[in-house]
């Protein structure tokens, strides 16, 4: 067990550094917007009225707290540790993403900016943003790579039904990274009227800190719930990691509990070969991308490499800087699941527990499937069921049933 003393509440520092990671590597054209946002967030965080409004909406509009569900049949089937699912999939809009989107729209209200932009990969963050924009009467533009628009067509339609404009991005490999670039460009151009709701614990300060804070409620609830159920802390936490917001939300309240092991699961795609995966801790390197210093996938000349994952939400070249920090000091661990392993776990949870998970979440489940049988029956695992799989039905039907569903 790690002997390093950690103090999660002290991180990041005032300029967004988690050890040597993070920070704000941004052009001067965005600096004022980031500084304004940081100041507004610090104020809001300390304002009981803001926290009360957020808590009320999380309860009545979003549906918190979410259950911590004991997956009895899956536990029996795997024959090892007792598996608990933190049911973020039951939230309004179908994933954890709404925790952050709601927090940030309340912040946009305080900033007095009437227009919202966001990037989205799988579409879950885009849907959550379009939802809160509708709820609070903001204009909303969502940037989405054209490849992702095809594989997540259902979510594109949801965003449009909610009144958002979805702008397809055709640059590069037309997935999440390019959508972030376009959103940043929009923000630089319209910064006086627009707030950018970044969807993961990524990018420049204050986003990694702020997004983590809004998702921390996942771990706070899970910690209380598992103590009620088991009367002791879990042995293992598992979550999928794209940017890393659902994972950090679950992990953060447990970081000082030295006996709790934490594993983040990245997208192994077709396997760990260049351009075929999105597992930054496997074959990645330290670098600077989209405002933050972190682990990323780049070639020998520092050009960002292509990534691949069956799940659009994990298909991104950099990992959130706070994950890079806890990885560095050995507090958290990272592994990966391939497309095939994720699809396999997707089918298992659907057919054994009657819960269709998001393909992103299925990567975490794939690791649970491997590790649970190696653990004792008296041990427990909490896995973040970060999203539901309705959006993935067409893709999963193609891969698992050989059926084409025209949407």
């Amino acid at each position, binding site marked *: 067990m790690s002997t390093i003393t950690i103090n999660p509440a002290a991180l990041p520092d005032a300029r967004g550094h988690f050890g040597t990671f993070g*920070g704000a590597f941004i052009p001067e*054209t965005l600096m004022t917007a980031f500084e304004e946002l940081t100041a507004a967030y610090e104020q809001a965080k300390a304002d009981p009225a803001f926290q009360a409004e957020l808590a009320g909406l999380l309860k009545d509009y979003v549906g918190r707290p979410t259950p911590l569900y004991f997956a009895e049949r899956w536990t029996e089937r795997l024959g090892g540790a007792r598996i608990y699912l933190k049911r973020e999939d039951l939230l309004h809009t179908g994933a954890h993403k709404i925790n952050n989107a709601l927090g940030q729209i309340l912040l946009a209200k305080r900033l007095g900016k009437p227009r919202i932009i966001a990037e989205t990969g799988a579409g879950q963050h885009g849907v959550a943003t379009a939802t809160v924009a509708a709820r609070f009467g903001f204009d909303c533009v969502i940037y989405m790579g054209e490849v992702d628009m095809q594989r997540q067509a259902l979510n594109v339609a949801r965003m449009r039904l909610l009144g958002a404009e979805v702008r397809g991005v055709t640059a590069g490999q037309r997935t999440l990274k390019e959508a972030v670039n376009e959103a940043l460009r929009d923000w630089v*151009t319209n910064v*006086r009227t627009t707030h950018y709701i970044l969807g993961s614990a990524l990018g420049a300060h204050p986003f990694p800190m702020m997004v983590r804070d809004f998702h921390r409620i996942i771990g706070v609830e899970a910690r209380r719930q598992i103590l009620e159920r088991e009367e002791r802390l879990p042995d293992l936490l598992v979550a999928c990691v794209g940017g890393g917001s659902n994972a950090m939300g679950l992990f953060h309240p447990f970081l000082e509990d030295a006996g709790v092991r934490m594993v983040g699961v990245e997208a192994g795609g077709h396997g760990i070969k260049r351009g075929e995966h999105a597992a930054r801790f496997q074959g990645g390197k330290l670098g600077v991308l989209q*405002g933050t210093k972190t682990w990323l996938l*780049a070639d020998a*000349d*520092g050009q960002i490499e292509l990534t691949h994952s069956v799940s659009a939400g994990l298909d991104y070249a950099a990992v959130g800087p706070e994950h890079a920090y806890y990885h560095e000091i050995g507090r958290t661990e990272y592994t990966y699941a391939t497309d095939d392993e994720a699809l396999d776990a997707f089918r298992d949870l659907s057919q054994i527990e009657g819960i269709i998970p998001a393909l992103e979440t299925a990567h975490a489940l794939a690791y649970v499937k491997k590790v649970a049988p190696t653990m004792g029956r008296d041990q427990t695992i909490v896995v973040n069921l970060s999203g539901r799989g309705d959006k993935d039905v067409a893709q999963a039907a193609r891969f698992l049933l050989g059926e084409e569903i025209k949407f």
Partner: protein
Amino acid sequence: MNRIDATFNRLREEGQSAFVAYICAGDPDLDATFRIVEAMEGWGVDIVELGVPFSDPMADGTVNQQAAERALHAGTTVAGVLDLVRRIRRQSQIPIVLYNYMNPIYTYGFSRFLLEAREAGVDGLLLLDLPPEEQDANEELRAATDLRFIRLIAPTTPEPRIASIAARAEGFIYYVSREGVTGERSDIATDLDSRLSLIRRFAKVPVVVGFGVSKPEQAGAIAAKADGVVVGSAIVRQIAALGASPDLVRKLSETVCPLVQATREAAASH
């Protein structure tokens, strides 16, 4: 003396403003970039900004992003750009500023890059995504060199921050005249006069204006007010259109020479 400083000293004595041209190194290939820079010196361009191509240029518009894509496709690397500068230096003393994003430089090795860039004959660096705060916070990113670190000031930069950027500015200050990414605009910013005089209250180095300048009359209007004018996308767009044409350099002169001329005439008349 650093070539940037020497050039502005000379221009000041002549009552002139600088014409700064931006092109992406390696677009369409490094050999073409060499010939373009060689020609630009003859056309009266005062300073050349060479973009080091990056896959994810978040401060740039479509025109410059596509130029970077072409340059990367042609196999341009950081080492290749440094070689290009060495080759230019064998025959030219035109001031050269490298326009970079962090990741390729960081991957190359930050201090190794600074050393080799200086030795190759680079005069200044513009690191789009390295604000002074991060340079202060990361020991490995501090500059132990006499390369000029060119700083940007934006329309949204508040006065106290202008003061602190200007206090440590080297070479020249690059004022971004319009909110947004690089690219052409049809008009010039209306508050340019007041912003320039604000910056000049704090600046100890010349102030050049760029982002969105494409037409000779815009360049002239800015040259009449500022110490220099930067044109990028309008030139890059021409290079994209001409591509591998054997006439690339000659035809490019039709875009660049009127811009240089407008800069000269405007400055001479004030």
